[in-house]
């Protein structure tokens, strides 16, 4: 089970800024451990952000994204109390969905 994300969303002048901090190892599959064995790739592949039920951002992630990724983006619209839902899926099929109310 993946650890929770920390999401913040703030609306200002008709634009909502969303900041997401994900907890993920984002292992590239290129590294070796101390005994020389390859550490298997384990990274987020897809990320979706929804405002209420409308998709506002859809992204493909890969092994070049850092450990514990941070993502910030803005979308038009959004008002205080609206729901922002962010979810990701990784290459091992693990997933995580968290939601927050727009402040």
């Amino acid at each position, binding site marked *: 089970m993946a650890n929770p994300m920390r999401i913040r969303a703030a609306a200002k002048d008709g634009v909502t800024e969303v900041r997401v*901090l994900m907890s993920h190892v984002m292992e590239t599959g290129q590294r070796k451990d101390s005994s020389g064995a390859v550490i298997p790739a384990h990274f987020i592949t897809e990320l979706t952000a929804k405002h209420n039920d409308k998709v506002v951002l859809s992204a493909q992630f890969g092994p070049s994204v*850092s450990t*514990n990724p*941070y993502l910030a983006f803005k979308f038009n619209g959004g008002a205080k109390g609206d729901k922002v839902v962010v979810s990701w899926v990784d290459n091992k099929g693990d997933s995580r969905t968290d939601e927050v109310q727009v402040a």
Partner: protein
Amino acid sequence: MKKTIMAVAIGAVALTAPNMQAMASEDLNFDAYRQMLADGNPAELFEMEGEELWRTARGPKNATLEQCDLGVGAGVVDGAAAQLPRFFADTGKVQDLESRLMHCMETLQGIPSAEIINGKFRQGERGKLASLVAYVVTHSNGKKVQVDLSHPKMKEMYDMGEKVFYYRTGAMDFSCASCHSQDGKRIRATQLPNITTSKGAAEGWGSWPAYRVSNSQFWTMQHRLWDCFRQQRTAEPVFASDVTIALSVFMAGKGNGYEAVWPGVKR
């Protein structure tokens, strides 16, 4: 035709040259880089875990840490870290945040301190302790460091810390002061605070624990100090031993009155 191409090529060189210079000075703009890092500090993930650990009943005694007294009353977390290390009457010792949390984990939860002292950084109970540190220091973020040095034991620790700070040892004959007694020094992109000044001491004390972006690890002050000893090529200190607490009292005491940025974020 060839001439025109040459002219264009030279023109291009002339145009790019000033840009290159601008780039070089931009490369050295570490403050902008640090600002970018500070937005979305992944230390928050450790803080979230620490908050959970604080409230979760664990250990042989199946208790939470909510009755832990960090010096400002049982269970009070707000502002506690800004006043640590301090002298605790119940243990008769000067303790920093880590040793105090360790004490709480042993007395309240029954988790033996030896497990943490003999453990490894970022693993097992010592790793959990680091997350708890992240949680506690976040509740002192922006607070002024206010360490009370009036108790004789605190004075003793401060003096010992000062002595250790200037004590040259190890294969390189280094002291802490070798790297930390001049203004404006840095190692690669990392600025070295001048700990002989109050401002510098506060920059050092008030920016750890921190998340290190280069290795995706969260380091507590105990971890930072342990690594300073290692880099000094001298004997590595025992976790939460007097020498580490003495150095902490020295830095915190010298940095009194300055704001802490907790948890920090580093390259």
